[in-house]
């Protein structure tokens, strides 16, 4: 047996798989022989970090995942939260979150496009209509030529794919940080709409032994071979060309048709009351997908690889079985339904006419054996126990929690001292500098490249508010909002605090449009888990997410972990827990954009400003090496969120905007920029200077909202009920100026400072 084990190790090393020697021995021991090449690659994919969460799983257990609004929790391709009832039906919002970081670094256009493609399939395969996507992007410094190329191409890829498939892009965020120079982060969220009774599960249904396994989509080719294990590796410059082969090739045109054909299949399944299993092919390809479907159903599978439609002749069996060719999905259906399924894809929606070789084909059968058997030209190339293949491995990685300095009040003193020593600046000059900061400036030249309104269900498209808002059921007032949070400047200082703030930010963003958060989804982007420091940052962030989500009472319903975001030069990404919140608005009439609506409205801040400048924009501009992040104060912040939602319902406020990067004054300026026709604002700097120790308080990134008050009395009453302390900041004015005490700055000047940086980078898109 020892010889077999060592032969397996030798084979694995020769084949260049990412499995460790121990893992290879374990496989050979269980199989009682050296694995075949196809088996080797199947285990390589299934046991990768990407598929098995082998380093992260023990920690992810800490996240709260249950709640009254959870229709389907973590465990399948996507989670589902309850949107509400309409015409006697319960509707759910399907939520999936993925990273496509490694592919986007190597081949940014295709990497980002297939990121959208993959997440859309994760939602589709739950039986849902795909209603929107959102993306969180983290780019390296745009002064760096390669980073510029990546940043341009990622946006191009997202635009090209999302626009063509006709799914609106309704939100996202962008940060630029040195730590992403060698590892871009491309995180994508997709949302779907499904009736609770129509959910299709990612598993072989009960009693499905003997049913057909049907592969749908693009003809299998060599693209994307080894993608799962590639994304679990450290990127090495020398391997760049080799890695490119591991990236999939997008075909949004084919996907557009596959989606529509699949909607027709859903309708037929419902009409004939047929159960089915459905799952998208992602990491691990056909073998991974069909194995997970069958493992989840407690059955087995027999697959004939030569029945898989291929784009090239003589593809080796391991490529057919494991390759990650895009735009493919896998059904398990009763043989009585198979002819209709094939007719819909192949004739009615004529996939073979849409893309060469694309089709639906029966490639295998469900068995009762609990084994995954694949044959190729009469030869058995895989015969493994399913639970062993898909069960993966677990590791307890050593970790060292980050030490975070507790500085408290010293921060404020140092900030004030620095501000005094720095070049004398008026409030207006500081505001202009903050608005032009890379993490504050306008993203219009990015989001205007995305179609945010296709499907005709968009109520608030990107750029008009903190969160995108969709009215997904035609005729129903129910609306869903999606907001994103996660700040790499915070992550670098304190992963745990950054995670808490990411949860608060995402929830705050949906509150600002009048929504109550009902579900969270996370994408955790970290460095090498075998390095105690990076693993410690991950563990601290999960603790932060878990704690904050518990206190808010909002569960996680899906998520993703992306590790090994480090380059061979040793640079690793800023610990980046990125969170999206799904919010429900019972009546879209209670939603609002962030634009100031009227002149003469009081402008109010819903919490006292904290003078913690760690990770803040103004702190960076002043060169303040601070380590104190704003304190989330979850319970108080949750009450602020509720106040905003209630006030919007009752018309007591006209607009709300969460204070984030750039602080209070930047938030006020952005609400004025959004006003049509232009409105200005006037503030009295003195009270803030007294309360927050100097005018820097205007740039503090305290978790709070800036609101435009319509009904002062109602606002005060609701605020008292919810014990929210609000502070007057100023008033909206009809003239397009920022009046800052004695200083009067034309709004156009500030707007130009805010719009110029990314406009000049991405090119102007005139509105």
């Amino acid at each position, binding site marked *: 047996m020892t010889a077999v084990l060592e032969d397996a190790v030798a084979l694995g090393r020769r084949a260049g798989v990412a499995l460790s020697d121990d893992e290879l021995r374990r496989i050979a021991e269980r199989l009682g022989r050296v694995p075949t090449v196809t088996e080797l690659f199947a285990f390589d994919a299934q046991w990768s970090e990407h598929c098995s969460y082998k380093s992260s799983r023990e920690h992810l257990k800490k996240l709260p995942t249950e709640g009254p609004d959870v229709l389907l929790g973590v465990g399948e391709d996507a989670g589902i939260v309850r949107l509400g009832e309409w015409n006697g039906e319960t509707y759910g919002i399907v939520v999936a979150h993925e990273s496509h970081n490694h592919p986007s670094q190597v081949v940014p256009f295709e990497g980002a496009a297939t990121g959208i493609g993959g997440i859309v399939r994760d939602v589709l395969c739950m039986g849902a209509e795909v209603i929107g996507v959102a993306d969180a992007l983290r780019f390296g410094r745009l002064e760096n030529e390669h980073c510029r190329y990546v940043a341009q191409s990622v946006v191009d890829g997202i635009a090209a794919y999302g626009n063509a498939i006709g799914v609106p892009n309704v939100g996202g965020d962008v940060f630029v940080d040195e730590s992403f120079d060698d590892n871009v982060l491309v995180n994508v969220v997709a949302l779907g709409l499904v009736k609770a009774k129509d959910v299709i599960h990612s598993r072989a249904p009960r009693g499905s032994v003997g049913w057909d396994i049907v592969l749908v989509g693009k003809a299998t080719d060599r693209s994307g071979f080894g993608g799962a294990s590639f994304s679990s590796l450290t990127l090495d410059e020398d391997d760049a060309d080799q890695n490119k082969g591991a990236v999939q090739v997008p075909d949004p045109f084919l996907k557009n048709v596959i989606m529509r054909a699949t909607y027709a299949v859903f309708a037929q399944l419902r009409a004939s009351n047929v159960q089915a299993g459905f799952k998208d092919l992602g990491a691990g390809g056909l073998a991974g997908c069909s194995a997970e479907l069958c493992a989840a159903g407690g059955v087995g599978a027999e697959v004939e690889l030569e029945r898989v439609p291929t784009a090239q002749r003589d593809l080796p069996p391991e490529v057919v079985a494991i390759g990650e060719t895009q735009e493919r999905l896998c059904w398990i259906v009763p043989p009585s339904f198979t002819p209709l399924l094939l007719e819909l894809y192949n004739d009615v929606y*004529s996939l073979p006419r849409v893309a060469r070789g694309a089709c639906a084909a029966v490639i295998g059968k469900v068995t009762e054996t609990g084994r995954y058997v694949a044959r190729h030209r009469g030869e058995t190339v895989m015969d493994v126990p399913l639970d062993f293949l898909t069960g993966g491995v677990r590791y307890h990685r050593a970790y060292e929690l980050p030490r975070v300095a507790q500085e408290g009040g010293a921060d404020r003193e140092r900030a004030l001292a620095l501000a005094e020593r720095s070049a004398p600046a008026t409030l207006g000059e500081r505001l202009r500098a903050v608005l032009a900061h890379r993490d504050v400036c306008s993203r219009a030249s990015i989001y205007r490249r995305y179609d945010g309104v296709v499907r005709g269900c968009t109520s608030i498209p990107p750029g008009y508010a903190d969160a995108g808002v969709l*009215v997904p059921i035609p005729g129903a007032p129910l609306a869903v909002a999606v907001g994103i949070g996660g700040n790499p400047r915070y992550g670098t200082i304190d992963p745990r605090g950054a995670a808490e703030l990411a949860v608060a930010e995402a929830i705050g963003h949906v509150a600002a449009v009048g929504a109550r958060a009902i579900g969270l989804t996370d994408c955790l982007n970290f460095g090498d888990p075998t390095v105690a420091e990076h693993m410690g940052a991950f563990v601290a962030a999960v603790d932060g997410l878990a704690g904050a989500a518990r206190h808010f009472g909002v569960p996680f319903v899906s998520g993703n972990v992306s590790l090994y975001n480090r380059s061979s030069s040793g640079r690793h990404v800023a610990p980046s827990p990125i969170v999206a919140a799904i919010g429900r608005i019972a009546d879209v009439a209670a939603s609002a954009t962030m634009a100031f609506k009227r002149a003469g409205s009081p402008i109010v801040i819903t919490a006292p400003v904290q003078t913690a400048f760690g990770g803040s924009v103004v702190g960076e501009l002043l060169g303040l090496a601070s380590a104190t992040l704003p304190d989330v104060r979850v319970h108080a912040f949750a009450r602020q969120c509720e106040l905003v939602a209630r006030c919007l319902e009752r018309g007591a406020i006209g607009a709300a905007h969460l204070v984030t990067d750039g602080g209070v004054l930047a938030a006020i300026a952005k609400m004025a920029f959004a006003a049509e026709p232009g409105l200005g604002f006037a503030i009295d700097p003195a009270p803030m200077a007294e309360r927050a120790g100097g005018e820097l308080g205007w740039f503090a990134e305290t978790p709070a909202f800036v609101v435009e008050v319509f009904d002062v009395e109602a606002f005060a009453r609701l605020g008292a009920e919810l014990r929210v302390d609000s502070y007057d900041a100023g008033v909206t004015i009809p003239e397009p100026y920022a009046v800052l005490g004695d200083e009067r700055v034309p709004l156009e000047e500030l707007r130009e400072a805010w719009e110029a940086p990314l406009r000049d980078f991405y090119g102007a898109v005139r509105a």
Partner: protein
Amino acid sequence: MSARVAVLVFPGTNSEDETVRALQAAGLDAALVHWSEPEALARFDAYVLPGGFAYEDRIRAGAVAAHDALMDPVIEAAEAGKFVLGICNGAQMLAEAGLVPGTGPLRRPTAAFAPNASGRFHSVHVHVRLAVEPARVPILGGIAAGTVLPAWASHGDGRLAAPAGELERMARDGHVAFVYADREGRRVPSPSGSALDAAALVNRGGNVLAIMPHPERDAWTFQHLDRTRDRASMLAPSGGATFFRHFARALAGRAA
């Protein structure tokens, strides 16, 4: 009985459902006709070509679809004076089919919607203003002179391009049905760099209209972004719905 309108779906079309909803809200009997069922096309009173990227916009936007057999009955209907409306990708198809401005032979376009001056897709909220006499657009029955509509310009190829002589002729003969405008109706440069600031073209007979921005994407109050977002009527048709109402009125006039 309300008029029957076919909304054509080509491989790559992506705006079919919202287009059907906007037509239905205007009281029309609108139905999707899929590319695999061309024989179904004969039974309709009017045809709408919705937005998307039909046939991946290979060669030029709308070009392959314009030569698809599915377009044959549409072209026939247009020649017979039936109403044909193209929105975005549908507008590009009508130009490629030679139906707008309709001054040359069929499928030999004299004008086209070319890539935006920026070279990139954009999605921006705009207003468009009726730029011809209402009598010039019988397809929008009863529309008032100077009507301003909100819409979304969401396209990569929205720049009207034609030889200088053809542009002159289009301007002179009233083929530029809508121009980009501000909310008060003052003409503004188009985001795409379109010649004549054109947002829509109409044929000589006024029965074929090709409009680049999407009125169906700002056709319900909940879709508005400005002060007209009236809370009491969030789910009611408004704004761009006017466009479809006049299209329906034109069809009702035909039927009567």
